[in-house]
């Protein structure tokens, strides 16, 4: 019996089209657009000027405040503009625009593929290097890693959870990363164990990646305190609270964080970025992105520099199909539709998904039939059918007592609803308003 979380969950068609295509390096773009707000929290402060010549890996914006992250140049060249550019959020945000010339890396970065498993730094030094390298959660939430690693006073962490679940349909970036860089990920985990003074780490991988599970199983033989768990295929197992429940059977309390049950969770992509930051001295300026879609000619996994326009990725994957309805950044469940293909790849972009126009349209909304399917699939144990009208009618106090803030916007309710009701749309709106009310109370 495979492990999984107990409450709710769905199993959408997996569609892992690019699972067996190895990671390729994408050619450099002609112009890189690097937004300075790529993470949760305060946007980074730009530290360069128009006309400056930057090297790959050079710091261009420093994290401003506690919850923020540094941003580095992903290409070498001349800064031609610093202006507001429409990013994944659909709003104009400040960005640094670099005209690419050559690929001139900072000398301090070690540019080889050699596996360096010797840990020389102390815990504090590792944490400082992670802060300096601008590492954020690469699973999609883009929460600055150093903040996650700073344990609040009075709390104790006894194990790490490493997320190799990749429960979103279509996406295969983490899967390929585990197969091709498994040994590096394990060194990354050792680094995290050292930095956080923890001896145990659990890697969770869904059972639709048997090759990755086998490989990681073989690799962990030589590491002490790291365990690989094969998990039942169920969405949203990649959400940290569900993953912790699945692997450790610990339940994060309502409104709490994983640290409340002594766990900190990291994505395998983040762990690999941490390995590179510490052992290769390479800041976070590239990531693995899956470019996929049923209508796309060559679904693939690319190693992409941050700031590369989405159009270049689509071009390399065989060009934009004629009948494209939507281009989605992220997976089909939680991803966001892009307003055009000039939007740059940021630290949180795990995939680019092309949906044909027939599939992308919303179906007509019908009245709720009280079938309670949304209740049975909600992984947080909420009642979406109730939250939607509460949000529609602006009954925010009741929404709060119904724990709307626990919703993680996985979209299982909207997916399962036979009446095609836009449950998540309204719940998200309700969360926004209730969040405002809660903040105004402080």
């Amino acid at each position: 019996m495979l492990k999984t979380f107990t409450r709710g969950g769905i199993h959408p068609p997996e569609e892992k089209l690019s699972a067996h295509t190895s990671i390729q390096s994408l050619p450099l773009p002609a112009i890189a657009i690097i937004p300075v707000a790529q993470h949760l929290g305060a946007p980074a402060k730009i530290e360069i000027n128009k006309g400056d010549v930057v090297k790959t890996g050079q710091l261009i914006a420093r994290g401003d405040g506690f919850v923020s992250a540094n941003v580095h140049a992903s290409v070498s060249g001349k800064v031609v503009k610093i202006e507001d550019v429409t990013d994944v959020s659909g709003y104009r945000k400040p960005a640094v625009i670099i005209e690419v010339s050559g690929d001139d890396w900072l000398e301090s970065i070690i540019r080889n593929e050699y596996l360096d498993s010797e840990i020389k730094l102390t815990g504090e030094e590792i944490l400082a290097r992670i802060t300096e390298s601008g590492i954020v959660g690469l699973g999609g939430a883009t929460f600055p890693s150093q903040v996650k690693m700073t344990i609040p006073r009075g709390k104790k962490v006894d194990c790490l959870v490493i997320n190799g679940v990749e429960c979103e349909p279509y996406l295969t970036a983490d899967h390929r990363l585990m197969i091709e860089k498994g040994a590096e990920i394990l060194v990354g985990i050792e680094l995290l164990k050292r930095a956080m003074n923890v001896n145990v780490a659990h890697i969770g991988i869904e059972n639709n990646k048997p090759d990755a599970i086998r490989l990681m199983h073989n690799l962990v033989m030589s590491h002490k305190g790291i365990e690989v768990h094969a998990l039942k295929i169920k969405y949203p197992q990649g959400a940290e609270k569900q993953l912790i429940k699945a692997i450790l059977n610990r339940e994060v309390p309502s409104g709490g964080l994983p640290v409340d049950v002594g766990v900190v969770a990291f994505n395998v992509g983040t762990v690999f970025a941490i390995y590179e930051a510490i052992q290769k001295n390479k800041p976070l300026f590239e990531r693995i992105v899956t470019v996929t879609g049923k209508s796309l000619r060559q679904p693939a996994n690319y190693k992409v520099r941050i700031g590369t326009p989405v159009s270049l990725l689509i071009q390399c994957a065989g060009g934009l199909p004629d009948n494209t309805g939507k281009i989605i950044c992220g997976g089909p469940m939680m991803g966001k539709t892009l307003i055009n293909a000039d939007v740059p790849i940021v630290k949180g972009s795990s995939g680019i998904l092309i949906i044909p126009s027939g599939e992308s349209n919303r179906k007509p909304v019908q009245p709720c039939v009280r079938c309670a399917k949304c209740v049975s699939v909600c992984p947080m144990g909420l009642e979406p059918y109730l939250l939607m009208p509460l949000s529609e009618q602006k009954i925010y106090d009741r929404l709060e007592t119904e724990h709307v803030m626990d919703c993680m916007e996985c979209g299982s309710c909207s997916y399962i609803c036979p009446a095609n009701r836009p449950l998540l749309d309204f719940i998200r709106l309700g969360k926004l308003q209730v969040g405002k009310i809660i903040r105004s109370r402080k």
Partner: protein
Amino acid sequence: MSILYTIVSLSLLGAVSALVLYFVAQKFKVFEDPRIDLVEAELPAANCGGCGYAGCRNLAETMVKAETLEGLYCPVGGNAVMARIAAVLGRDAVAREARIAVLRCNGTCEFRPRINQYDGVSSCVMVSALYGGETGCSYGCLGCGDCVAVCSFDALHMDPFTGLPVVDDMKCTACGSCVKTCPKNLFELRKRWKGEKKIYVACMNKDRGAIAGKNCKVACIGCSKCFKVCPHEAITINNYLAFIDSDKCKLCRKCVTECPTNSIIEFGFPIKKVISESSSLSTQLNQKEE
């Protein structure tokens, strides 16, 4: 004989119940100022919440309790109603200038082309939570009509040709519901002139001139021409956006002719000039900026 029993027993029962009811009513009596009813009768009973209180009754209670009428004002009833309420309560009346809501966006389908298509729930607050909207301008009207839905006075209607809401000057009471509802803060309550004359900057775009002009032909590009020409110091420019203070403006109309993108619009004036070829001007400007 039996009818007598019935009459007596029922009368007794009635008398006892009346006694009980009387004492209970005395015991649980709640004193309510009779003036609250009088004040409420004067209020328009629209329950729109424009005063900031939960309906007319709530405002009446607050007015009776408060020492002065300072800060308490029914925008729907206006000065006439406030004067009558002041007479009921024997206090000084608070007079305010009449106001009217205007939409500070003129980004019609013609001036501001759609660059993407939204197919989610038709609600402005929902769209604005998701992204910048169907056009390149993320400050302008989203056109889903949240304001129309919230207006209690039927003073707002969607124009199907422009895709923008239109304020009915005769019906607008300046209650401010639309101001609170619009997620883009496009409504402003401005001074109401005789003959419904209006001059205002119909734009909220805070982008740089080149970007604003590219996305909308009638966007304010922050060129400061109006600022320089205004003889009454009514115009301020912040974040590449002009704002005309309706309390300082004297309706001299100098800024209207000066505006290169026609983002300052006037209403209710006799036709003086032929509206200059707006599109060609703004395209010239775009080329220059680029």
